């Protein structure tokens, strides 16, 4: 037992850092859900593609023999590439796989099935073009192992700090955009009352596309961060990450951006602690357990408003 207590602070720190990344992916889910009331099941795959895009940049720089690689400029480059690519794929998805469905007044089943199909398609597209074996992020070249420090007995690497800080900054940036800009207001307007937003002159189509871009870009960024930290990526990583991020979004209150961030932190922490005390193989069960508990006990999540009576079954 004493060993466990010793590593506890370490696990807490790690859990929180991981949680910020979960939150980043979760925000992508929640953004789309707030606007369309659909779960973009393929979001996990967009996260995965972001990871591959970041890997691509790193590998390109390495094989081109570029000198003086420093995370201060390499990481933003990787992020930019991943975010742009992921964002565009998200927009493409919305345009071709989802939009034809809701303009026809399809049942709720349609978009979900289509999203599952998109998820399978993207997974396999990456597998076929990039190979089934995992790819490696040679993070060591960017972040030397020596870049770590100790606080109160806890080992923290610079990489972990960067990962968490980038995630938090992005989420804050998004929050700012949503709350302070005209674009953000139009997104909120469409999320709250699409018809009225259109009557205000908002191009609902454009807002939906932008929202998809933003959410997907964030997911892509998370992919790079995860790639950097865990160094191994494969075409299947989006599946469990996606489900966990969805759990985080639901936990925090689906449709609520701050909720997604909070949910991510809670999930990361819970997972980290659970794994400390029990069989690590059941790591994923933690997420599902939280999901099921949330939906059964308080479906509106931690920060969500309880739905008005008229919307309850």
């Amino acid at each position, binding site marked *: 037992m004493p060993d466990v207590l010793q590593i506890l602070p370490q696990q807490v720190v790690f859990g929180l850092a991981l949680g910020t990344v979960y939150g980043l992916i979760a925000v992508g889910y929640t953004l789309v859900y707030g606007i369309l009331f659909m779960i973009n099941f393929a979001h996990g795959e967009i996260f995965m593609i972001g990871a591959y895009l970041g890997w691509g940049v790193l590998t390109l720089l390495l094989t081109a023999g570029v000198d003086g690689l420093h995370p201060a400029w390499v990481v933003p480059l990787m992020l930019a590439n991943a975010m742009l690519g992921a964002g565009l794929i998200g927009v493409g998805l919305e345009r071709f796989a989802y939009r034809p469905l809701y303009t026809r007044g399809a049942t709720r089943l349609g978009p979900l099935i289509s999203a599952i199909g998109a998820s399978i398609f993207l997974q396999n597209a990456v597998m076929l073009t990039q190979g089934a074996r995992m790819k490696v992020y040679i993070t060591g070249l960017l972040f030397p192992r020596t870049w770590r420090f100790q606080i109160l007995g806890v080992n923290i690497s610079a990489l972990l700090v960067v990962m968490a800080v980038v995630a938090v900054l992005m989420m804050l940036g998004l929050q700012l955009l949503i709350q302070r800009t005209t674009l953000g207001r139009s997104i909120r307007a469409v999320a709250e009352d699409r018809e009225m937003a259109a009557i205000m002159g908002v191009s609902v189509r454009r807002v939906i596309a932008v929202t998809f871009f933003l959410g997907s870009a964030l997911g892509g960024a998370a992919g790079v961060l995860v790639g950097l930290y865990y160094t191994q990526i494969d075409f299947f990583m989006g599946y469990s990450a996606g489900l966990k991020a969805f759990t985080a979004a639901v936990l925090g209150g689906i449709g609520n951006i701050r909720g997604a961030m909070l949910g991510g932190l809670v999930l990361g922490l819970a997972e980290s602690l659970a794994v400390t005390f029990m069989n690590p193989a059941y790591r994923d069960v933690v997420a599902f357990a939280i999901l099921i508990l949330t*939906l059964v006990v308080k479906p509106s999540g931690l920060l969500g408003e309880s739905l008005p009576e008229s919307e309850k079954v």
Partner: protein
Amino acid sequence: MNWTRPASTSPPGLAQGGQVTWVRHGIRLAGPAAVVVLALLAPLVSPSEYWTGVLARICLYATLALGLNVVVGFAGLLDLGYVAFFGIGSYLYAFLASPQFGIHLPFLVALPIVVAATAVSGILIGAPTLRLRGDYLAIVTLGFGEITYLLLINGDRPVNITNGVNGILSIDPPALGRFVVTGNRQYYYLFLGFLCLVLIASARLRQSRIGWAWQAIREDELAARTMGINTTVAKLQAFALGAAFAGIGGSLLASWQRSVFPENFLFTESINVLAMVILGGMGSLAGVVLGAAILVALPEIFRDFQSYRMLVFGLLLMVLMVVRPQGLLVARPRSGTRPLPEAPAEPTGSPPRPAAS
């Protein structure tokens, strides 16, 4: 519950006003009769043991798909974790008819036990989902599917129940008295027999009171409740029956493959079965069987393009939703009444919130 027939009842194509001509009767029976004959003769024209196996697999999956059809097609509950029941059924059968625990019950004894137990698991898994709708229901059931898989693959520690990643081997083949089922052809007829049972059961269920209740729930749960339908019981019944059919399928798989592995019960399998239901046409029994046939046979035919299989599958799902979301065959309306009308599509406006309460 008193269902009165609406004023203009007969949908086009069916008999008018209760009068049935022999010609119409004959045509209606000719189709299914031909299918039955074909099904019975199929193994005789099959080119090899392997292809007979494919036929058997079609029957197996059709059984599964019919089970999911009860949950998704009849009751409208989107279950993404159906593979859990399949896995539970398979492993339960393995427990009862293999060296794992040294129990070797005969097929006809083990099967009902497995079916009953799987039905119970259906109720257990369905219970937490009762107040959920749409996407949430889907994800939670998916979660249960994943949990089941994790339990199967990690069930060898601390106590070895499932034998973990190695699976359970040397499962007894089905034996009826002294007669042991051997060879794909015999398995095919066995599976075909069960498929017919399940088909008949499905058809009966659809016509029954519970079938009406399910349809009402599927169309509008709130309205169904105000009509006095106990939606809780009805939904649990749907889960239980769907799971029971999966229990049959699981037993069949275990006794045919003579082994079960956790890898048999991945999420992709849930989607596979769901695709059969959707492709074929939700609620339509013939459609579901057709969907199963297509989705089992096609990958076999295009064996060479194996690696593209999932890619095409994903694409198929997306395209299907755009082009023909109702599936290939439309569910036949219950005789004498017209199907409940779709709510008119609102031209624009906010999509409905999939509320979870």
